[in-house]
């Protein structure tokens, strides 16, 4: 199939950037979206032009490196799927496809479709960990964990930090990411000692970065490749409100 692409091109962080039109010829339906871009890039290189820069790593949907807005949807039209796992069979011959980078005050565009997601790392540094004195590995099942807590924590821990939630949110808010990270530790016994400090710290850092606030549009949940629920946002709000009434050292 042949596609007409409108791709955001931007030389570097200071370049204003613009949409540029490309033709993607002889695209196989078995290609992934990134492979389709690889083919376009090969033809650009052959013509002596600069290839389109985009982030990717595992290409199997687990690392969270890839991600772009495809026709106005983070990671494209297939639900629960990262861009690298999106296949061209979901497109038709002659389709026009708009490709843009994640846009958020907190995710400055570095080049073309690549953005700096360092803000997520700083949120994790503000409390997305548990402090333990390392020693020999503890025995498995030494600490009992209620089945439901384990399952829910696991659902939250599925977050790969791709940033689709922020990209799709009309406010560029990071509530789904932050709440998943707050919850997957906060639900486990190991996460209890720092539970209140964690939610306070991570929310404070989230707000310091130029993310928006949550208006409960639910856009994030709809595009999350790991289909993480907005229930975690409510849970984070609840923990944050409770934490407000606790001392600084709890």
């Amino acid at each position: 199939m042949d596609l007409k692409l409108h791709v955001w091109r931007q030389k570097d962080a200071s370049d204003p950037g613009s949409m540029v039109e490309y033709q993607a010829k002889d695209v196989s339906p078995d290609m992934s979206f990134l492979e389709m871009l690889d083919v376009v890039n090969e033809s650009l290189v052959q013509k002596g032009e600069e290839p389109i820069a985009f982030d990717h790593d595992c290409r199997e949907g687990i690392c969270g490196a890839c991600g772009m807005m495809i026709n106005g949807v983070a990671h494209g039209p297939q639900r629960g799927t990262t861009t690298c796992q999106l296949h061209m069979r979901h497109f038709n011959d002659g389709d026009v496809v708009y490709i843009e980078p994640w846009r958020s005050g907190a995710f400055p565009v570095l080049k073309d479709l690549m953005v700096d997601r360092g803000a997520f790392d700083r949120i994790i540094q503000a409390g997305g960990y548990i402090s333990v004195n390392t020693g020999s590995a503890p025995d498995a099942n030494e600490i009992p964990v209620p089945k439901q807590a384990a399952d829910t924590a696991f659902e939250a821990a599925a977050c790969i930090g791709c940033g689709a939630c922020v990209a799709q949110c009309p406010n560029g808010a990071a509530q789904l990411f932050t709440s998943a990270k707050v919850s997957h530790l906060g639900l486990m016994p190991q996460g209890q000692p720092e539970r209140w400090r964690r939610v306070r710290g991570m929310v404070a850092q989230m707000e310091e970065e130029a993310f928006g606030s949550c208006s409960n549009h639910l856009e994030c949940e709809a595009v999350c490749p790991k289909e993480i629920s907005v229930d975690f946002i409510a849970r984070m709000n609840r923990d944050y409100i409770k934490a407000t009434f606790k001392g600084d050292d709890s």
Partner: protein
Amino acid sequence: MQWMIEIYRSAMFKKVVMAVTGLMLFGFVIGHVAGNLKIYQGKYVDGIHQGEYKLDVYAEGLRELGAPVLGHGQALWIARIGLLLAVALHIWSAYQLTLVNRRGRPQAYQKVTPQASTYASRTMRWGGVIILFFIVYHILHLTTGSVHQSFEAGQVFHNVVRGFSNPLVSGFYILANLALGLHLYHGIWSLFQSLGLNGQRFNDLRHKIAVAFALIISLTNISFPVAVLTGVVHL
């Protein structure tokens, strides 16, 4: 002290203010619509209020709430001050959050395809502005009477029927209540989420509660001008 300043600055706090004041206003709107149902009950046929409109007696009763502990009109004024504060704080937090949200998406997409947001969720700001204009107009129209053609203090039923017999007035009233219905549909659901009121058993109910209350409030409110225009309710 430092922690208080931090809380005041946080967007999460403003969201809580939004939800709590929204809940207060929602509570008021329910009471308001329930009280106004007296429009459909006509006059007392006997007793000390014989021949008076039930709506007029109810309005007078609002001024006597809390008697004899509170004086004439005191409870009403306490409620009015509370509501005014709620509206002011609600608008203040809406404004502050709008600034935060602009900062969150400084550059718009060329193409956006909404996946889950609703017309209601996307129109909270403009819907809110329509509601604000309406609140001001409504007070000038039926509370102070400044913009009413034939206002008679204390004759609430008369004022309502005369007011709504003007199709323009009724039209604006209906429009504003459609906006209120949308605002409340997203708002009621949203406030559960903002205040962290969720749970496996409760989650499905939240949308149903929001739909039910938004429909009850906006349709009942809209029924009043419709009843006057169609002659179901008349002087």
